[in-house]
């Protein structure tokens, strides 16, 4: 015979056991969920830390590169200055050349200019000519140039081809 009961009951102890089972299940689910969330967070943290490490390394490299870049910029500026100076010097013809040209113009036909040396302060000429008069004339002509002063005959040497070699020395006034 079946008992009539309008409420569906479980055995009291079974109910408690079910309650314990459900509680344990919920605890396990909670622990699993918590651990999944925690592991996810930890993985995220480690990924962020790795990223930070990479960025720090990159930043260090960047600082070095920036330093190098600044140094190079400075060097470039310096070099440019030098380059400009050189170009300026290159573009302006030397005044000594003009002086040489003028000297060469005044040298007569029977006279040969053996050597010429022009420094900042001094000028030395070595000419070969037949006599002393021509050498004096040449010295006078050259000393008329505004750039030269105190030009004098310094020595005479007899040359092999019936002439004389004169050393003329003077001072450079201003080039």
């Amino acid at each position: 015979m079946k008992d009539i009961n309008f409420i569906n009951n479980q055995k009291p102890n079974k109910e408690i056991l079910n309650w314990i089972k459900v509680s344990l299940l919920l605890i396990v689910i909670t622990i699993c969920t918590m651990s999944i969330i925690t592991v996810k967070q930890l993985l995220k943290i480690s990924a962020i830390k790795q990223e930070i490490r990479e960025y720090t390394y990159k930043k260090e490299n960047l600082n070095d590169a920036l330093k190098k870049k600044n140094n190079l910029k400075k060097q470039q500026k310096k070099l440019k200055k030098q380059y400009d100076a050189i170009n300026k010097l290159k573009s302006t013809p030397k005044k000594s050349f003009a002086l040489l040209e003028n000297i060469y113009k005044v040298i007569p036909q029977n006279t040969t200019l053996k050597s010429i040396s022009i420094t900042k302060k001094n000028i030395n000429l070595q000419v070969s000519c037949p006599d002393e008069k021509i050498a004096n004339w040449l010295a006078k002509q050259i000393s008329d140039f505004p750039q030269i002063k105190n030009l004098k005959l310094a020595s005479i040497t007899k040359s092999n081809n019936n002439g004389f070699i004169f050393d003329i020395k003077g001072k450079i006034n201003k080039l």
Partner: protein
Amino acid sequence: MISLRSTWERLRTGLKKRPDIISAAISPQKLTLSWMQKGSQGPELKAYETFSFKNLEFEKSIVFNPTKISSFLKNFAKENSIKNATFAISICGPTIFEKILTLSTSTPEKKDLNLKELKNLKWDYTYLGPSVKNGFEFYICGMKREILFQYKLLGIKSGIKPVVITTAKTAQIEFYKYLKGENFRQNQLVIDLQNSNYNIQSIFTPETIAKKIELNQNIEAEIKEDYPLLATNIGLFLLGNKL
């Protein structure tokens, strides 16, 4: 919340110990509460109390004053120091549908018993035994879901978990089975039911009931008039203990 509290109480008292059952037989006139425990010779009646309904607390099987009825339950448990209690309740009245049905088969399906009156009711049936004439007799009973819900709410309100909600007749049949013991036969049950015009409580006499339970003299004097209700209470106790 209450379920949790009672579960915790049960855990505290130990898993092995069964909760005490308060049997409550509710009728339009009165409510009888009894506390029984398993004794050496059968159920031992520890406490018994009757409350009469004078102010329409319970009318037509509807609980009109749940506060008062739940306070009866609570006070009964408190006075008798029953911790970890559950209650088994039997209801009778006009809103409870009850019918004895004779069918041609002893193993009908639920749809075979589907009566028009059972629509919108929470219902169940039990096989009583072979009919005296032809066929097989079944006891069908049902109650409105809202009334059932009222009794569940009563349990929540009193803080005592209901374990059995049934009809008085079901409890009485259970007591009949206990009364007959090993000699219980279903065809005899059907005969006894027919002889008593399906009023099974008339079969029980105070003497037969007194033989089957252990009770002290104070209670015995108190329940002299309520023997039929006591039978229902014992039936409820037996039903509750089956769980």
